[in-house]
């Protein structure tokens, strides 16, 4: 079982990489749940799923017990049931759950969105491979929105701004909910020195280097997944990333070899 979330500065390529990763993983392992906690659609584009702004209905949650979490899933609706009902099936049989559906008028979050964090907390971690896309920046990650993740992959471009944000994100290693692993993925790599620069700046090895690929820009402009456009260097690199994650961060394998969980 793989449970990975992608974090990084807005625009670093989290949605492109996480959506492509989810599909490529789904071709090797099932089932795969893609979870997008960004209120704005991103992952849907790279998964190849049409944008759907229908919010989850308010009645999925009820007020929680005094002194506890304010909104909880309504009686009779558990995380599995929620996923069954509200996840959208996509290409390669990826199931997609999107937090957002924020259009215009929202000044307070819709009640249905509170369900999302409950689902993520309560879902059976052994039932799904989970690939998550976090919103840009460090705030959501630091507040524990990726608690489902065993691995958090920080996506970094070889720019000063991206590196600044990535450095802040490294601090999740010290958070109370900290994921077991925090890794670095370099994106839009132009030359070999980019990887060393990122690795030096973050004081961590880069586990995958995804190149600048004009085919991805084309796919973005056409609003199709890079996998459905013309697979090129970007797709190759994400496939390699899937292989690296499977080799090193598969919870089932880890349990078998260490005897620990």
């Amino acid at each position, binding site marked *: 079982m793989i449970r990975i979330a992608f974090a990084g500065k807005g625009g670093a390529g989290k949605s492109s990489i996480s959506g492509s990763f989810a599909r490529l993983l789904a071709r090797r392992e099932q089932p795969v749940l893609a979870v997008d906690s960004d209120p704005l659609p991103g992952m849907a*584009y790279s998964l190849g799923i049409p944008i759907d702004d229908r919010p989850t209905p308010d009645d999925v949650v009820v007020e929680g017990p005094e002194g506890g979490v304010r909104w909880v899933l309504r009686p009779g609706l558990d995380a599995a049931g929620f996923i069954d009902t509200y996840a959208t099936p996509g290409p390669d049989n990826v199931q997609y759950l999107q937090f957002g559906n924020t259009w215009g008028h929202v000044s307070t979050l819709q009640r249905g969105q509170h369900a999302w964090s409950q689902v993520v907390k309560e879902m059976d971690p052994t039932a799904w491979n989970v690939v998550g896309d976090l*919103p*840009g920046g460090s705030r959501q990650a630091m507040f524990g929105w990726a608690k489902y993740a065993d691995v958090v992959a920080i996506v970094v471009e070889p720019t000063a*701004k991206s590196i600044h944000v990535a450095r802040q994100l490294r601090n999740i290693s010290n958070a109370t909910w900290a994921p077991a692993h925090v890794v670095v993925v370099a994106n839009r790599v132009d030359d070999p020195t980019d990887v060393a620069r990122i690795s030096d700046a973050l004081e961590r090895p880069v586990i995958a280097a995804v190149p600048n690929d004009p085919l991805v820009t084309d796919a973005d*402009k056409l609003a199709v997944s890079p996998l459905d456009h013309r697979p090129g260097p970007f797709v190759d690199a994400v496939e390699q990333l899937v292989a690296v994650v499977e080799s090193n961060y598969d919870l089932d394998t880890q349990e078998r070899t260490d005897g620990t969980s």
Partner: protein
Amino acid sequence: MLSSVPESDTVIVADLEAGIGTLTRLPEASVQSTLVVVEPTPRSIDVGQRAALVATERHQGHITIVANKVADEDDVNRVRDSFAEFDVVAVPEDRVMITADRQGASPVDVDPDAPAVKAIGEIAMKMIAAQ
């Protein structure tokens, strides 16, 4: 905080958090002008449309769409078609902006005559003239 800053001759350029979250919480009529920066991709345009809607509804001054990193006429049209009721200004794709980002420098210091820098300079002039 932006809405409580006193009015004066000083121009305040507020770089808001990415996305529309902050925009939805900004008190009405906090600013005289809103620049919505979009790349010529559906994903970016989608966010820009949401931002333009919220800014309009909350009376955040004159709204201008900045079509950024445009490579050709197709790119400009993709943005204009998506923002038919708004002023759209184009800033070209420019290697200097990429170099500045990589170096962590201001594009103005990398090359003040770069096409993108000049295009943004023109936006500045237009905004002052429109006051």
